């Protein structure tokens, strides 16, 4: 078959008009920035929602400055949209689409994604879904108040706002479509557009994590798309998929939702671990410890993630006998992730660690995520879940996992790749202030929630003081609310640093962190088409401090002869047979 039309023509001449360069661009770097800024903007929206309902929790009934009194249905809607926005419109775009689009083509040494037009389409469908989710605030009949889990029959009865749920489900469906297209692009690019000489085992770990995350997302979202269609049909066409009176079963949606829900949190965790791995290696000047062990552990975790979902439903009405297998698989899945975390720590062991902001953020991510991970064992064990299910212990657990994943890791990635994106360095002093304030207020916000959870506080209640057993917890509520306010305010130095450094920050060269992966072997910011010469990969991704070499790093595509002292560098990984 003629290869002329099989392979995609290389990215054509650089676009010139403003619209083609910045708005309707097919350049993966521009699309990455579009995803990142949409995600960051929605993070402030999600954060402000949290400020409002946390203020209601700390001082029930008092009008919240900047919002006014929070009614009961309003509270439910704030909680619902906070959950939806933070997962689907902050974590997914920033972690999967933002960093994925920015780094995959650069790291595999190619000019752009496999299907550039599909990539552009995926962003604009995502942008439409962002408008829709914001529109669901003002939908006739009020915003949706069903929790981000949208459990029927609550979500299929007309009670919580006539159109709010429909607009929200449509927004989520469009978001799924956008990420299916993105996933196909990521997989095809990583599989088929690798530079010459780059075998699958020479891919940086970040690319592996994005590949596995895309596969897990793509295969787990399918049944929920069918479930969402059934939900909309129940709301509008009088079908009874989830209506027991018509023979349907509300538990069906719970199973479909969590069959997607739990793999989804791993889809977010994997890119974060990838970002941390890249930064640890560059920071410690040391080869990633157990590269293949981590890749295989991540693949096993991806497979296991499809059979753990019912730990969200131990006491939700499923057959008690189902709890044993799911509790076992849930506890088992902590093993592959403990392998990855041990390997990341072992990467630092024996290194020559340079303090830098990205490394500080990556260490903060791992340190805080560990606490999130171990509290997962409490929820994963069926017996303990009898008490902690739907309690603030669960809320504290998933914030101790998701905030390190969706805030600390992307910030580590942002401080690390900002020089590559813009050609400028971020200011270290502002960065350190931002880091310390964020970590302190994060703990002030969520440590008290562990205590509230153990005290028995159950989720999604607007007024804890209405329950006698929660009255003595009110000081903890106020502490947690002060924490949220502090967390929001401590993002100010970051925004200042971002804007100031982009305009007038010190110029960063092509490789400020002296890293070995291909994304650092092209100019900052990379031109349209990324690499000026054909990239030929000669060694694995993490050749740091090889013996007998003056430089403490050897880029993946560096010619063999270039190394001081001649002689081929002993590649720590399989020399790609070409």
């Amino acid at each position, binding site marked *: 078959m003629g290869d002329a039309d099989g392979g995609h023509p290389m990215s054509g001449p650089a676009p010139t008009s403003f619209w083609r360069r910045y708005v309707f661009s097919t350049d993966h770097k521009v699309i990455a920035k579009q995803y990142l800024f949409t995600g960051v903007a929605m993070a402030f929206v999600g954060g402000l929602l949290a400020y409002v309902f946390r203020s209601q929790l700390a001082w029930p009934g008092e009008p919240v400055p900047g919002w006014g009194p929070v009614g009961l249905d309003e509270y439910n809607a704030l909680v619902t949209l906070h959950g939806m926005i933070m997962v689907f419109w902050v974590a997914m775009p920033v972690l999967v689409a933002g960093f994925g689009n920015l780094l995959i083509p650069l790291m595999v040494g190619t000019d752009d994604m496999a299907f550039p037009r599909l990539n552009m389409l995926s962003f604009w469908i995502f942008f439409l879904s962002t408008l829709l989710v914001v529109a669901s605030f003002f939908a006739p009949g009020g915003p949706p*108040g069903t929790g981000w889990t949208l459990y029927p029959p609550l979500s299929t009865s007309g009670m*919580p706002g006539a159109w709010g749920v429909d607009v929200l489900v449509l927004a989520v469906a469009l978001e799924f479509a956008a990420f299916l297209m993105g996933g196909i692009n990521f997989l095809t690019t990583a599989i088929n557009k690798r530079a010459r000489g780059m075998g699958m085992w020479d891919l940086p770990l970040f690319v592996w994590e994005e590949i596995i995350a895309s596969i897990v997302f793509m295969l787990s979202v399918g049944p929920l798309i069918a479930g969402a269609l059934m939900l909309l049909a129940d709301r509008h066409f009088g079908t009874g998929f989830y209506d027991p009176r018509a023979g349907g079963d509300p538990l069906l949606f719970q199973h479909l939702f969590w069959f997607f829900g739990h793999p989804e949190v791993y889809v977010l965790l994997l890119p974060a671990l990838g970002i941390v791995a890249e930064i640890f290696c560059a920071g410690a000047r040391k080869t990633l410890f157990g590269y293949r062990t981590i890749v295989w552990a991540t693949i096993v975790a991806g497979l296991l993630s499809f059979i753990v979902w019912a730990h969200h439903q131990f*006491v939700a009405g499923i057959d008690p006998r189902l709890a044993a297998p799911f*509790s076992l698989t849930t506890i088992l899945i902590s*093993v592959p992730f403990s392998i990855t975390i041990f390997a990341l720590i072992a990467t630092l062991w024996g290194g020559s660690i340079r303090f830098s902001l990205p490394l500080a953020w990556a260490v903060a991510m791992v340190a805080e995520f560990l606490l999130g991970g171990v509290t997962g064992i409490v929820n994963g064990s069926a017996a*303990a879940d009898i008490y902690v299910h739907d309690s603030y212990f669960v809320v504290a657990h998933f914030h101790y996992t998701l905030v390190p994943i969706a805030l600390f890791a992307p910030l580590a990635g942002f401080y690390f790749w900002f020089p590559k994106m813009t050609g400028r360095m971020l200011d270290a002093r502002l960065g350190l202030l931002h880091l310390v304030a964020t970590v302190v207020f994060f703990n002030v916000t969520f440590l008290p929630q562990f205590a509230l959870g153990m005290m028995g506080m159950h989720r999604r209640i607007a007024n804890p003081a209405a329950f006698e057993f929660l009255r003595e917890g009110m000081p903890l509520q106020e502490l947690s609310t002060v924490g949220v306010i502090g967390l929001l305010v401590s993002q100010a130095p970051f925004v200042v640093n971002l804007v100031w450094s982009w305009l007038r920050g010190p110029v960063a060269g092509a490789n400020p962190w002296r890293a070995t992966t291909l994304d650092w072997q092209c100019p900052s910011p990379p031109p349209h088409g990324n690499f000026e010469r054909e990239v030929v990969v000669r060694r694995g991704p993490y050749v740091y401090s090889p013996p007998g070499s003056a430089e403490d790093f050897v880029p993946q595509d560096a010619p063999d002869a270039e190394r001081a002292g001649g002689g081929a560098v002993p590649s*720590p990984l399989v020399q790609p047979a070409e």
Partner: protein
Amino acid sequence: MPHHLPEVASTFAPAIDGHIALIYVVCGVWLAAAEIALFWALFRYRRGASPRAAWMPADGARQAAWVLVPAAAVLGFDLFIEWDSARVWAHVKERTPRGNVEVRMTARQFGFDFHYPGPDGRLGTTDDVASRELRVPAGRIVRLEMESADVVHAFYVPELRLKQDIVPGRRIAAWFEPTRPGRYTIACAELCGVAHSLMQAPLLVEPVEAWRRWATQTGAIR
């Protein structure tokens, strides 16, 4: 060790608290070990003290062992926790013993309705006695058969350490044996609509004689 736990008021509450304590101990040790390893590596191998990083070539079995052995230990502890969890879970959830007191409960949007068997001693008959409050004897097994009239609700009493969602279209049983007389609160732990935050009902645990006097006087039981 688990902190801030409410008082114990049911027979299986100590088992659940004990299981949570076991997880705190095991996971606490692993957490401390990992955090210490992380921050010790940062300090010990800082650039000043370690000008050149070690060279660890391709990950052979020996290198992988450094990570697989601790992971195997994690697996071992996990399985131990899982064994203990299964034991407690089976005791609390997988069996619902015949209760000395049988009560049927219907949860609906924003309240709990309790039905006692009534003089004929059988539930579901016309002489059932309805009540907005669950009143039970201490030291006796109470068996609840729960249904929902509209959306998903949950029966939750912190002091009993008991939580059970109720899905419409199913009759779900739960049991507990209260130990300490007193007034407790039943709350709905599953988001069920606008006034979910206000949905609660009183639970009164009385000594057996006082309870029997009340029950026979109101005809709640035979």
